[in-house]
């Protein structure tokens, strides 16, 4: 039988095998694997020069060559029965899939047999995220702020401590002078503060101010290890 199949028409080794097995004109389940192996190996031989002959074709070729060698010796036939069966099932499966793929595309198709319908959209649809907060929540929140403030004030003896704004002011003054450098934050604490509480509030306000400025993206902050100087630099 003259075959002369061209590799370019095939989807892979199973596709070639399917085509060859059809020529045996029997149910795929009953094809002669030996005959199939012969034809496939011949096909590979003829197409060996072809660049499209990828590894998967050669893997199949070696499998079939192995099957063939075993099938030719009656005593070893049984050894390869399982491989033979597996190959047959793969062919049956692949054949069925090819059939299914043809049948799917024979179904009525959108754009050919029917159309999905969409008229010009006149709706303006916007997605809004609305917080769950009522007027009551808002007012309670506001009164909450003042309750807190009142209690804080009562605790503080005298409101002569430094606050965030003081810290911000110091930072801004520092950078007026040395704007390009990494500077150690706490070397710029105001000198001559005798009151220990006030000194602490100065440290806190300077740290708070620097963090707030980092958050605003105005300065960089860096500390190598615990207890090392905190370094800051204008961004």
């Amino acid at each position, binding site marked *: 039988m003259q075959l002369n199949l061209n590799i370019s028409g095939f989807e892979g080794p199973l596709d070639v095998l399917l085509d060859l097995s059809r020529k045996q004109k029997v149910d795929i389940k009953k094809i002669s694997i030996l005959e199939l192996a012969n034809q496939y190996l011949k096909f590979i031989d003829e197409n060996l020069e072809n660049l499209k002959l990828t590894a998967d074709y050669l893997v199949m070729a070696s499998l079939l060559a192995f099957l063939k060698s075993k099938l030719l010796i009656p005593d070893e036939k049984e050894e390869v029965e399982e491989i033979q069966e597996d190959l047959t099932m793969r062919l049956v499966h692949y054949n069925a899939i090819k059939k299914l793929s043809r049948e799917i595309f024979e179904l009525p198709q959108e754009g050919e047999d029917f159309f999905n319908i969409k008229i*010009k959209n006149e709706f*303006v*649809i916007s997605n*809004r995220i609305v*917080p769950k907060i009522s007027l009551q929540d808002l007012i309670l929140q506001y009164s909450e702020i003042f309750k807190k403030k009142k209690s804080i004030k009562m605790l503080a003896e005298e409101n002569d401590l430094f*606050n*965030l704004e003081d810290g911000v002011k110091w930072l801004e003054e520092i950078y007026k002078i040395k704007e390009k450098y990494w500077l150690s934050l706490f070397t710029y604490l105001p000198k001559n503060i005798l009151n220990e509480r006030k000194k602490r509030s100065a440290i806190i306000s300077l740290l708070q101010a620097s963090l707030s400025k980092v958050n605003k993206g105005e300065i960089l902050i860096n500390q190598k290890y615990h207890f090392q100087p905190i370094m800051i630099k204008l961004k």
Partner: protein
Amino acid sequence: MNEVQAKCFIEALIFSAEEPLTKESMKKMLNDYGNFDLDSILEDLKKDYDDRGIILVELEKKYFFRTSSRLYDYLRVETKKTRNLSNAAMETLAIISYHQPVTRAEIEKIRGKPVFRGTLDSLLQLKWIKPSGRRETPGRPVTWVTDLEFLRHFGLKSIKDLPKVDELESIIL
């Protein structure tokens, strides 16, 4: 093809056409399947859609479907999702609503905590607050006020309708 099918055919044709269809082009397509009175089919279809969400429109001798004008009031559709507002945002909003116009530094002073840009941004995005001119103090800081959406969300006619805190406290107590 019978009369009913012919009407369905024309209906589907107009619906699925990329562009408004002329009578001529419809007639051509219909002619393949028999002799039908296209005018009466179109009249029929127009009537069918008279009281629906979409209507058959004839414009410059071309036919197409569009949203019914009875829906014009409802064409603006907003889907709402609720989420929780952060405490910081709630406090900031409360302070702005009661102290407007107010600068960021002032808000920080009232809260006793820094106000982060993100907090203001989230309120801005909701259109609940907006910037409003600058305070003529050193640094000319921006001041913040509540925006229209704020009134709308809380069902207030004006910012003056915002209950006083002591009023509310007496209601609760």
